[in-house]
């Protein structure tokens, strides 16, 4: 096993260090710029995301456990870091186009986005119960502040308060579960816990309970049922760029943590084919089957009756978490690959949908579906990109979402979970109804006013890049899927 000391580990966490430096620099830049020069802070933050991204591409470190086993660095972790840095950068760009006043466009805001991204990077690298708890805590605390950032807005404050209450509760539950797991095994490091569980028998009841409670803490970040209640209120109340960020980065981080936790604790097999008996005893597969069915069904059925587009997208993001959880219940390498692929496509399509909603609601001053009526004449280009994102979220070919779903369902078929696959397909059909409602409002219904929605070049560019990726990954997905297959070597020491 390659376990490095603190000093040896430093080159491995270069992106994290760059982000941490970025947090401080953004504060300083904010101090020194004067007047209404609102873009400077955002550009600085974006530059640091870019620098972290570049440092990730140029570094080539062999897989290892870092900081005496606190973190793990392997190709899966690296892949996830790309996802987080990209979503942080996109969130920064959306924020710069949305927040027009210098007051909101402040150093604190971008420092919070940088910190949240740093937290997600740490979440995906955690291999120790202590680091898991602390990295989740970073992301949570930042999220509370970001959710309530729009202080003048009552809904935003409500979102923040609800988030704090749920977050505190789920952190408590998770820590209690972790303490039971520590009590059972005497280890904090996930790999050492695996070694203990493989060689000793522990009480199944206590183990089930502790794993369930830890899953509760992770599940709160992913927003799977029954830990999803905060999600619609928080997404609706938060500033839209923040909601877009919440729906992608912490969710992806939760999934990477989930993959890491399950694989490190219950196996040391790189092909994820052999699991220790404890996994069967606590019925982890069954737990995930139930949770995924619950999550996607609740998400989709609740989305049907929504009239607020942000709330609708919040329920849709719950449903998508449910789809990805199906991949977890396959408990196979192909399931894990499918999740990672799905997350990548989800990054582009969900950010895109939130971005268009943000843009339109800012111009039209409404987040209801009727604000989208007749958008084909009022803003033809944005209506087209929105249709691309919605089709992809539904999973229609030739969009990226279709390929993601295809991988998921084929992983399920591989694991012989046919009933689950059928339920997932039925859920996709249900989701067609509510995504179609937005598309119908845009194309088939008459606009309330004939006034054109003002078109901004930067926003148009961002929307077309996101839509471009959504289409491209639906047609030419082979390089990405090869990349993901090569990234799926989890390091077990």
């Amino acid at each position, binding site marked *: 096993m390659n376990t490095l000391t603190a000093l040896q580990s430093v080159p491995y966490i270069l992106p994290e260090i760059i982000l941490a430096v970025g947090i401080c620099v953004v504060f300083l830049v904010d101090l020194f710029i004067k007047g209404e020069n609102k873009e400077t802070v955002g550009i600085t933050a974006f530059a640091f995301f870019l620098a972290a991204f570049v440092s990730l591409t140029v570094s080539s470190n062999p897989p290892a456990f870092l900081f005496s086993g*606190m973190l793990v660095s392997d190709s899966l972790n690296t892949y996830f870091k790309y996802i987080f840095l990209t979503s942080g950068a996109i969130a920064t760009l959306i924020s710069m186009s949305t927040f027009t006043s210098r007051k909101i466009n402040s150093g*604190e805001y971008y420092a919070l986005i940088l*910190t949240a991204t740093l937290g997600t990077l740490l979440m995906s690298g955690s291999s120790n119960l202590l*680091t898991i708890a*602390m990295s989740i805590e970073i992301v949570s605390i930042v999220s509370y*502040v970001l959710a309530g950032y729009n*202080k003048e807005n009552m809904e935003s404050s409500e979102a923040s308060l609800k988030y704090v209450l749920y977050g505190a509760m789920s952190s408590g539950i998770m820590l209690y579960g972790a303490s*039971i797991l520590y009590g059972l095994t005497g280890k904090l490091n996930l790999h050492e816990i695996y070694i203990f569980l493989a060689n000793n028998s522990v*009480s199944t009841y206590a183990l089930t*309970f502790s794993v369930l409670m830890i899953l509760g803490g992770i599940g709160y970040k992913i927003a799977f049922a029954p830990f999803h209640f905060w999600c619609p209120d928080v997404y609706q109340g938060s500033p839209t760029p923040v909601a877009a960020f919440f729906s992608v980065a912490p969710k992806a981080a939760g999934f990477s943590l989930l993959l890491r936790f399950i694989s490190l604790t219950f196996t040391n097999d790189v092909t994820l084919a052999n699991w220790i008996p404890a996994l069967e005893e606590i019925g982890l597969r069954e737990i995930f089957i139930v949770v995924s069915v619950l999550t996607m069904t609740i998400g989709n059925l609740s989305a049907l009756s929504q009239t607020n587009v942000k709330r609708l997208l919040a329920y849709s993001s719950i449903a998508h978490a449910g789809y990805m959880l199906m991949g977890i219940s396959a408990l196979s390498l192909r399931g894990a690959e499918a999740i990672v692929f799905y997350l990548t496509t989800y990054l582009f399509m969900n950010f895109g949908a939130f971005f268009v909603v943000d843009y339109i609601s800012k111009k039209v001053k409404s987040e209801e579906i009727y604000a989208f009526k007749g958008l084909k004449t009022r803003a033809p280009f944005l209506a087209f990109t929105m249709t691309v994102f919605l089709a992809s979220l539904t999973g229609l070919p030739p969009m990226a979402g279709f390929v993601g779903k295809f991988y998921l369902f084929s992983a399920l078929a591989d694991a012989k979970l046919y009933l689950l696959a059928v339920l997932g397909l039925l859920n996709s059909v249900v989701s067609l109804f509510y995504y179609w409602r937005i598309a119908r409002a845009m194309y088939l219904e008459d606009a309330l006013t004939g006034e054109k929605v003002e078109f901004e070049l930067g926003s148009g560019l961002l929307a077309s890049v996101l839509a471009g990726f959504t289409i491209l990954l639906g047609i030419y997905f082979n390089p990405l899927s090869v990349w993901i297959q090569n990234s799926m070597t989890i390091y077990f020491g």
Partner: protein
Amino acid sequence: MELAIFIVLAVLAISSAVVVITQKSPVYSVLALVSTFFALAGIYVLLNAYFLAMIQIAVYAGAIMVLFLFVVMLLNLKEQYYVENPKKIIGGVLGLAFVFALLFPIFEIEKNLVPESQMPVGDAYNIGIRLFTDYVFPFEIASIILLIATVGAIVFTKKHS
């Protein structure tokens, strides 16, 4: 003897914790929380964690609780009245069931605990060594959490002109 002390401390901790959430006056709640923290500090001493016990009293029972009291008095909070809500009973029953479900795993843990003879002494020296070698990374993460929590508090309290 140790068991007797533990039981006294545990009962004190739990009963004052119950007082915290049942008292209608916030000041009494805060004072009860102080006594919970003292009882916890006693339990830390029983676990050989002397340094942690000291910190618990100095930081939590001392500094933080004084701040709490300050805030409560500054805001001049009146007695809080609860809205009666039938959902509360369901919540209470579920919560109690959860507590009992939580109690069982604890009895399973006992056999794997570290034997007392091998239990290290939690003094400042040992904690310092561990904190700056094996646990240096979580220690640094904690600094980021504190920084961002401070920033968050300022964001929420800052007045826009």
